[in-house]
């Protein structure tokens, strides 16, 4: 296997008296999709913020593309960030810009060599990929929740990053829109061939897209492995968390381990 | 045009409150609690601002009167400008900035979280429940806050005049006392009551009509303090015109 784009070594983080991450270590494999799951408030989002350098750990290493985000200077952090893309929970679009301008923003900032027409082509291409063609001029407050996520996704992939992170891609969406987003992630996974990290508590969506699963519980990594390893693990907390959400596949049933899809 | 519609809405809000709640007994405990909160919250800010208003009043008065050879008039200038106009207005502006914005943002957050709808569903009149205690509370404390502002303004301008500008303290006090009457203090109290009504109704109204979400809360809070200030200054002019004009 190639060198892992993200590797966590014994990461600790506390906020005041509250321990949020308590010695988390694992490597995220290159070119595959890793889901980080766990109940609310177990430090999933905090872990994600460590990977992108918004929070620095109290102890341990967070290596992203070989740079240790725990103590890297600002310039090195920005250099890492130019190689990754992230989809935020509600898209985190700038309300002062139009849909197209939002997607164009990272290109404008980091690729001054592109002409306006080239940038426009890239934006149209990205809008195509997230299945929202022709929305360039739509003001962002007029977008629906699902559309905001897709635009956020288009913005995340516009710079052709090597690593794409998703923060709760399904939260706040109805089941149909949520499935459509999962399908979109699955599609991008096949076309882009980059590393995906998905943070979620929505097991159904996770099972559909993940190659590897890491489960966090109270700041600790309680399960880590391939999808099949984790979904069949005997750990009591994993069982409790998965049990309610999941119809486990029996060996003679070829369906993926998920509820029926609405297409 | 939009401004006129807004003022109309505000007036209607006041009438609506009066119709539904004027005859009801106010919630005594909550009213006292609000009075205490508004008073205590606004006091440190009020003290600081009145202090600096006093210092600058003395500095500017001194600079304006020196070319006339009328340094002795500083005491009179400070007393008239401070007691009649500035102290009541500054008290109002700070209560609007501190307590008014808080009223607006609290009510706007309740609107965002649909708690106001919940009150209606539980058959509690939100005007009575949310506006009445704040209104009676602010009416209780505003005159006292104004008196404090007057006092602090005079003290700080006295200190600056005597210690920084080297004026004769006896002359300062003589001129200050000679130019203020009980009537001026009384006028200040009338103004304080008018400002209290304005601040409370404007701030609560901004909260009630706010849009949902964080932007809505921010906008309501922002609007509350700006509109309160404008209306207070305008009504200050009207009251002064009636009483001194």
């Amino acid at each position: 296997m190639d060198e892992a784009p993200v590797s966590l070594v014994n990461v600790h983080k506390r906020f005041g008296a509250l321990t949020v991450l308590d010695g988390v270590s694992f490597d995220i494999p290159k070119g595959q999709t890793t889901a980080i799951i766990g109940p609310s408030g177990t430090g999933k989002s905090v872990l994600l913020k460590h990977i992108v350098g918004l929070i620095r750990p109290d102890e341990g290493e967070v290596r992203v593309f070989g740079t240790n985000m725990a103590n890297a200077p600002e310039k090195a952090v920005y250099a890492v960030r130019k190689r990754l893309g992230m989809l935020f929970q509600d898209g985190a679009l700038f309300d002062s810009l139009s849909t197209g301008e939002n997607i164009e923003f990272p290109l404008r900032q980091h690729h001054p060599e592109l002409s306006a027409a080239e940038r426009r082509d890239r934006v149209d291409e990205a809008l195509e990929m997230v299945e929202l063609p022709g929305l360039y001029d739509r003001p962002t407050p007029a977008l629906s929740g699902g559309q905001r996520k897709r635009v956020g996704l288009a913005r995340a992939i516009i710079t052709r990053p090597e690593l794409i992170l998703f923060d709760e891609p399904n939260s706040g969406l109805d089941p149909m829109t949520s499935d459509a987003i999962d399908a979109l992630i699955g599609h991008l996974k096949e076309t882009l061939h980059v590393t995906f990290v998905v943070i979620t508590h929505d097991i159904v969506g996770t099972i559909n897209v993940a190659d590897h699963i890491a489960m966090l519980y109270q700041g600790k990594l309680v399960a880590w492995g391939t999808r099949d390893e984790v979904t069949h693990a005997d750990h009591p907390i994993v069982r409790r968390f998965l049990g309610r959400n999941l119809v486990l596949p029996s060996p003679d049933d070829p369906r993926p381990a998920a509820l029926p899809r609405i297409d | 045009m939009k401004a006129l519609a807004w003022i109309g809405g505000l007036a209607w809000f006041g009438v609506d409150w009066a119709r539904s709640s004027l005859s009801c007994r106010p919630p005594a405990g909550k009213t006292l609690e609000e009075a205490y909160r508004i008073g205590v919250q606004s006091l440190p800010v009020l003290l600081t601002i009145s202090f600096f208003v006093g210092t600058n009043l003395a500095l500017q008065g001194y600079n304006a009167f020196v070319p006339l050879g009328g340094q002795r008039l500083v005491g009179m200038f400070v007393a008239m400008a401070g007691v009649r106009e500035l102290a009541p207005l500054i008290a109002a502006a700070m209560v609007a900035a501190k307590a008014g914005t808080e009223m607006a943002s609290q009510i706007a957050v309740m609107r965002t979280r649909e708690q106001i709808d919940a009150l209606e569903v539980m058959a509690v009149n939100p005007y009575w429940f949310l506006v009445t205690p704040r209104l009676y509370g602010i009416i209780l404390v505003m005159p006292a806050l104004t008196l404090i502002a007057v006092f602090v303004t005079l003290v700080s301008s006295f200190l600056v005049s005597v210690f920084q500008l080297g004026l004769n303290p006896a002359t300062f006090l003589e001129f200050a006392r000679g130019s203020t009457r009980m009537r001026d203090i009384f006028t200040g109290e009338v103004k304080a009551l008018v400002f209290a009504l304005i601040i409370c109704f404007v701030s609560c109204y901004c909260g009630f009509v706010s849009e949902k979400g964080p932007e809505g809360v921010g906008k309501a809070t922002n609007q509350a303090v700006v509109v309160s200030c404008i209306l207070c200054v305008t009504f200050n002019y009207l009251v002064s015109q009636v009483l001194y004009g």
Partner: protein
Amino acid sequence: MTDLLARIGHFGVFAGRVAWRVVTPPWNFGDFFRHAWIVSLRCLGPVIAVTFPFGMVIGLQGLAIFNMFGAQRLLPSLISVAVLRELSPVLASVLVAAQAGSSYAAELGSMRIKEELDATEIMAVDSLRWHVAPRVAALILACPILNTLGDVAGLAGGYTMSVLIKGEPGGVFMANLWGFTHAEDLLAGLIKTSIFGAIIGLIACYHGFYTTGGAAGVGRAVNDTVVRATLTFFAANYIITSAMFA
């Protein structure tokens, strides 16, 4: 007490980092002009609505004083001293704090809550440079402009009261208007207000930038901004005025 000192230190670091980004390129000119324009436009009405009646009140009270000494012709000089040196700078800045300061706190606060600031950082763009510096710079420009308009409105209020309402002769008013005031007073007002603009901008952006706790947190940021910005620039006003005139 130590808590307060820590906060002031934290603010100092923030202010220094923003100041560095205001004076060094690259600059976000687009947002700077947009914000300066919006602030000037949105504060214009409130500034005039406050300074005009205030000018009238000075006219009213000043006339009462000068009538006692039979020195009515000094009134316009007093009005222009009061308006140019103190009232217009202070009132314009109070309204900038209330209107622009609070809307900056609200904007940045909701950008923080909706993760737009984090998103900016993730896209390897310096959020202080991109979002905060143009706002602070815009207030440094807009505050003196609004002060100048406040000067005009305040003098117009004084004129309205003494000439149009109280019937003092208009020619005498205009002739005595610049009795005690000079170009330096106007300049002093401009310098003062750009300092106030910087103070308001920094305090507002600080509260917005470090907002926590959802919609209620945004409300709190706005609330704190108006009060603390006003307090700080009043204190600064005393110091500047002492240095300039005394």
